[in-house]
């Protein structure tokens, strides 16, 4: 299990979701990923994407104008 980070700043939805999806594909179940975004739409889209595709949205925190969304990779079912 390892921790990873993804920079999705200045990207507009759905790019942060696409980047998250493509990164998660390379990770294994149990790994965690922090995605840093500036588009608040990601706050809806990344958790929805997680629910649909069998991953876990752990939570988010906001720092200045940035939103850091944490995801735990599931087994894809």
């Amino acid at each position, binding site marked *: 299990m390892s921790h990873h980070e993804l920079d999705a700043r*200045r990207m*507009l*939805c*759905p*790019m942060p*979701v*696409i980047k998250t*999806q493509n990164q998660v594909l390379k990770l294994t179940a149990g790994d965690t990923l922090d995605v840093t975004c500036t*588009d*608040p*739409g990601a*706050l*809806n*889209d990344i958790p*929805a*994407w997680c*629910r*649909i*595709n*069998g991953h876990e949205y752990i939570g988010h925190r906001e720092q200045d*104008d940035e939103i850091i969304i944490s995801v735990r990779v599931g087994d894809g079912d």
Partner: protein
Amino acid sequence: MTNPTPKQRKAVSLISGGLDSMLATQAMLDQGIHVEGINFYTGFCVEGHTHAIRKKDKAKPKRNNALWVAETLGIKLHIIDVIDEYKDVVINPKHGYGSNLNPCLDCKCFMVRKAHEWLQENDFDFIITGEVIGQRPMSQRRDTMPVIQRESGAEDRLLRPLCAKFLPETLPEREGWVDRDRLYDFTGRGRKPQIALAAKMGIDDFAQPAGGCCFLTDAAYSNKLSDLWSARGDREYEIDDIMLLKVGRHLRPRPHFKIIVGREEGENRFLEGYRKQFTHLYTTSHPGPLVLLDGTADADDLQLAAQLAARFSQGKAADSVRVELHEKGAEMRILDVKPLTNDEIPVGWYL
């Protein structure tokens, strides 16, 4: 000896986020097919964008309809970035454009072809779309249905559940994976049969896209894209170009440059992200928008751009407005200018 359980067939569904693809998908789920959704991001999609940029839209954050549809139906969704590959579709559409710069038929062929590639890589059996004959003047006509099948390479692995009864049998129907009797015969632009089917399926919340699914169907957007092409003398674009066409007021005072003026705080903040790439200006004596300059500009042009920046600031009625000019690759300069009046800005400058 007992019969082996028949293999569960798998379909990939093109999910736009609208009602039709939602119904087509539910129709397959109802027939016991395993369905996963696929959604292509071309850069022109209406989803999110301007809503994310403009502050007034932030109060009600917009959901991504494709994700929402997938979640409602309980299917997986794969969102694919096709920005680069899609350029050829927009720049050289074999079947031409619709009423604006929308290359709908080529776009449909492209998307079904990409879905077909995905199907082969992921060992799925067929593709479904929410197409309805006669629904769209360019891409959804009886004579274009076989064109999409042929040019995408999907051939008879492409099933349109909502109008299948008007079309020749496809592989999933012939093989008995799907019961043709339980498919539909919708035609035309009317929405009644879809609304009725939605009610029957228990779907009571759905997006109603007006017109097309992307900015290329929008006349104002298409005008700005053609302007960009003619000003540059070629029909190329980068993702930043097409994002910027969605934001701000665009004015072209001279053939060799245009300015992009933020209309409100959200747009200004978005444009700020492009400051390093562009010559830009803003007023310092009065509150005002951020102005990006795209193209080449000599001293007179920069003076004009500063007067325009002043015009769109709160100092538009003042005798003199101070403007900071950050020319790409040069030191910052201060210009004191007289704002242009409305009468001095020809309507033709507005794109």
